[in-house]
């Protein structure tokens, strides 16, 4: 049978029986690929595309079409591109958004059009609690979790006078509330900085004036890079201990800042030195493909692709059957780089959180070393409020 004839038959078949298996999977990948947060978006994209490549360009056995777009960390652009994905490209899945404010701006139209959103990063407390939605899955974490882990560690280490610093957006508010959920000591000051701010001279002068014994900061990507450099340049590192969630102390920040990061304790749900088969393969493939150590964002992009692959396979490609796909996603039968993976009832992960320390490894590289476990099978604090139907 000649190729065009077979294609015509296939097209006719699909048109007639919508519940029949789709011929391909369209995935809308919208992320921050420019501006201060670009490093995060690029890592998620690289991780995601590495997984698709390792699956031979197929997802759940069907050819995958990944449409990549840049939201430039701007809610308006995110909303417009999402409308294009939903109405023009008619994608089956959406993923990739880095920042919670963009996630919240985009969520409603995606859920209303019954399109599954597989978040590889943004885990706003709203979607974990009252506004949880059957079409929203987060394969990374709920925003507060990593901050809760650091809060517990700082509290256990007996620090009494801590300054908190985070950008003024939903993710930043979740960071502050997460940290304070497990840190019971005195909070000297809560400083909110403008989203995307890069010069912290004013804030550092304020920190120096309040003389805290420790500083917890959550500043993803370029913001974190500039903050740590300016913190060290201001000579504060002598008498104020720095603590941060994994976001502000991972490979992207370490590569840019280098030695000044040594001795920084941070928390994470993943580390490149976790010894399970999936992680070893992922870290090796990533270094071969991109020539750099993967960051936790890359691991989350990688897992998101594997989750979609598992869901399409388990629902036998019947993407129109939303209930079947939802059940397959909830089952999450995929080999996560973090080992065992399971969702909570609000579609957020229940997983372990580890303590990491930035030290020089055997080959003299400045990188994270896993030191121990802070939480085991930890669930987020909002699942109770979620009445998922």
């Amino acid at each position, binding site marked *: 049978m000649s190729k065009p004839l077979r294609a015509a038959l296939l097209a006719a078949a699909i048109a007639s029986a919508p519940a029949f298996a789709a011929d391909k999977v369209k995935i809308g990948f919208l992320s921050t*690929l*420019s*501006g201060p947060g*670009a490093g995060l978006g690029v890592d998620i994209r690289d991780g995601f595309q590495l997984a698709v490549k390792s699956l031979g360009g197929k997802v759940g056995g069907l050819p995958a079409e990944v449409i990549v777009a840049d939201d430039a960390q701007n809610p308006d652009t995110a909303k417009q591109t999402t409308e294009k994905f939903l109405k023009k490209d008619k994608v089956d899945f959406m993923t990739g958004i880095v920042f919670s404010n963009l996630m919240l701006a985009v969520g409603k139209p995606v859920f209303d059009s019954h399109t599954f959103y597989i978040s590889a990063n943004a885990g706003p407390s709203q979607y974990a609690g009252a506004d949880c939605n059957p079409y929203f899955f987060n394969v990374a974490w709920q925003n507060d979790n990593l901050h809760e882990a650091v809060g517990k560690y700082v509290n256990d280490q007996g620090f009494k006078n801590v300054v908190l610093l985070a950008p003024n957006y939903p993710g930043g508010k979740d960071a502050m509330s997460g940290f304070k959920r497990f840190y019971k000591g005195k909070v000297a000051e809560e400083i909110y900085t403008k989203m995307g701010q890069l010069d912290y001279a004013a804030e550092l002068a304020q920190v*120096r004036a309040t003389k805290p014994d420790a500083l917890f900061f959550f500043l993803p990507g370029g913001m974190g890079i*500039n903050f740590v*450099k300016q913190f060290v*340049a*201001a000579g504060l590192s002598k008498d104020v201990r720095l603590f941060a969630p994994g976001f502000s102390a991972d490979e992207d920040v370490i590569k840019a800042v280098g030695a000044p990061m040594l001795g920084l304790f941070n928390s994470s749900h993943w580390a490149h030195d976790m010894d399970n088969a999936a992680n070893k393969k992922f870290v090796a493939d990533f270094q071969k493909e991109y020539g750099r150590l993967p960051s936790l964002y890359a691991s989350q992009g990688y897992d998101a692709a594997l989750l979609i692959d598992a869901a399409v396979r388990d629902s036998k490609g019947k993407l129109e059957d939303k209930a079947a796909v939802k059940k397959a996603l909830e089952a999450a039968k995929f080999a996560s780089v973090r080992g065992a993976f399971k969702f909570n009832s609000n579609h957020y992960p229940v997983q372990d959180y580890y303590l990491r320390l930035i030290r020089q490894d055997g080959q003299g590289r400045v990188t994270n070393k896993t030191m121990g476990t802070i939480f085991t099978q930890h669930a987020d604090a909002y699942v109770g409020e979620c009445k998922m139907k």
Partner: protein
Amino acid sequence: MSQLILEQALNGLQFGLMLFLLAAGLTLVFGIMDMINLSHGSLYMGGAYFAAAAAQASGSFAVGILAAVAGMALVGTLLELAVLRHFYKRDHLSQVLATFALILIANELVRMVWGPQPMMLNPPEALSGPVEILGFFYPAYRLLIIGVGLAVALFLYLLVAKTRVGMWVRAGAANREMTEAMGVNVRRLFTAIFALGAALCAIAGALLGPLLAVQVGMGENILILAFVVIVIGGIGSIRGALVGSLLVGVGDTLGRALLPTLLRSVASSEVASNLGPALASILIYALMAAVLFWKPQGLFPARG
């Protein structure tokens, strides 16, 4: 508390001097050629990218700055000769459209050459730590910026006040037709002024690159502050640009730092930390509107 005020004042001085580098070029172009140049911010961005590229290639920050200055002076000259020269006689609306188009082109060219992600530009290794003076810590790199800023300000003052070219510049600012009538080769003077403005932007871009970030579109926010400065100072006056930039630099920084603490006594810390920075920015524009309303010629009017 005095440590905080002193440190903030120095931060304000540092930001003010960098603003001056932009404002000086902008006020001359605006004052003498009566040209609204919205793409002035793109010259600043170009300078930052040239510095980052050269510093990464050569490994030395100083080479980065020199490359930026030379590169942008050349780009400025070419831009003036090829495009801007044709718009001196045109009305302000056409100038706005043309220079707005240049912003789009500049941003896209940078994105094509260096990609959408911000570029890494680290201060020189020796200056990455703090300096201690009488028990007071201050980042060495920011002191360098203040030093360079003051040096350039002095150089500009001498150039404008004491040299023949400077005299032409002042004459041009006061009355362009008369200057032309007295036989000053105005075309070459304009090109020189524009190149000087571009070089100053390059210095600002190279020095602020490590503190802010070398990224596409970095010119647009600081451009608006430069306009505020030259309006307050008086369009066409270098002295006005210096005073205006220090006023805005220190005002904005102190406002951003002290207003939240002041507001905290009256409102909750959450509201104070939000309202503080916004109020600081609003005050800057309120000052500009007030100057435009009462003293449209600015504090140091160039035109007699």
